[in-house]
């Protein structure tokens, strides 16, 4: 197992989607990489003191700081004349990216540091026990957005993080999914081929928080993309430059596979609302494959 830059023996749950993605990202990036990590599952599971799963220099400083600390690492390496040939990754979960660390991330994008920011989007604060975050989708049942008499689930739609990052006019923004592993590596390599700040958001299913059997991570990631709820898109210099086209499946297939949406199956009107979100994504990004080629 010496060939992976993220070693075995970490303490992730069985079937963790985030670890699949993290290993793909670091292997695609190569050994001349410095990783700065936000607080979250990935930080906790990979560095159980005094052990570390990383084969490369790795730093952690507080919850929201990865983007800011990575900016310092980049500037420091530049000053020492060692920046050429070194990749820098700042990474964190959806909570530390879209909620707690958003201003540090925005600062990094605005200052134009040559850093790839990777957001592992498992759609809630999984490390502390499934609390809702800004990237939790509409109607999801989490511990802080429970289903009951007054609410169906999470009241608010998902925050459009890729658009927020792209609005900074940075060279490269992409979304990826663990359901398409080769696509993740392709996008990471493409990101490192351009200079400047880059943002990649990877959809990483979580068996514990989403409540499904651990072997299904890849299939559920794929379903989210194929029903239009997680469009795989690329922005270059603020403009939409690529989408993965699909033959849209009904969102019900994705919802019924997970315990966090179980309460919706008896509420067709709520499923209709989620289908509308998927349909608007499909229309907005032009996700639908032309009928002739399908």
């Amino acid at each position, binding site marked *: 197992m010496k060939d992976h830059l993220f070693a075995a*023996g970490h303490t992730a749950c069985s*079937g963790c989607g985030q670890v699949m993605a993290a290993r793909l990202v670091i292997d695609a990036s190569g050994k001349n990489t410095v990783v700065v990590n936000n607080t979250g599952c990935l930080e906790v599971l990979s560095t159980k003191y005094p052990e570390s799963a990383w084969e490369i220099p790795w730093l952690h400083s507080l919850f929201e700081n990865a983007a800011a600390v990575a900016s310092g690492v980049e500037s420091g390496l530049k000053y020492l004349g060692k920046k050429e040939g070194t990749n820098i990754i700042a990474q964190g979960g959806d909570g530390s990216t879209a909620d707690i660390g958003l201003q540090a991330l925005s600062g990094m994008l605005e200052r134009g540091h040559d850093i790839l920011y990777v957001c592992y989007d498992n759609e809630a604060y999984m490390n502390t026990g499934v609390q809702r975050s800004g990237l939790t989708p509409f109607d999801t049942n989490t511990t802080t957005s429970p289903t009951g008499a007054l609410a169906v689930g999470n009241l608010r739609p998902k925050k459009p993080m890729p658009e927020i990052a792209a609005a900074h006019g940075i060279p490269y923004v992409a979304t990826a999914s663990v359901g398409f592993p080769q696509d993740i590596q392709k996008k990471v390599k493409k990101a490192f081929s351009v200079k400047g700040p880059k943002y990649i958001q990877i959809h990483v299913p979580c068996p514990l928080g989403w409540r499904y059997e651990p*072997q299904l991570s890849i299939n559920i990631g794929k379903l989210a993309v194929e029903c239009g709820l997680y469009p795989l898109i690329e922005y270059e210099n603020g403009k939409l430059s690529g989408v993965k086209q699909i033959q849209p499946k009904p969102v019900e297939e994705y919802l019924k596979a997970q315990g966090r949406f179980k309460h919706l199956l008896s509420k067709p009107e709520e499923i209709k609302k989620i289908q509308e979100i998927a349909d608007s994504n499909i229309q907005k990004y032009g996700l639908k494959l032309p009928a002739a080629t399908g």
Partner: protein
Amino acid sequence: MYGPLIIKPGTSRNNKTGSWRVELKPKFLQKDCIGCKMCAVICPEGCIQGEAKNTYICDYEFCKGCGACALICPKKDILMIKEE
């Protein structure tokens, strides 16, 4: 340098997470394998290795038995069997 410092890389290998398996473990039949590498690419533990077709095998010291490899194998060449 302040704060906890871990000097040696990859030391998590001291954790033999194979003991986490509860019921099932993968069996690599090495019969119909076409060497597509998908099992090795997606294994969350990164503990599957192989060079060519019919050589892929996982390290049971680390395998947590999630079963993702068995599900993704296009040739059904990996089975989940009961732990002895």
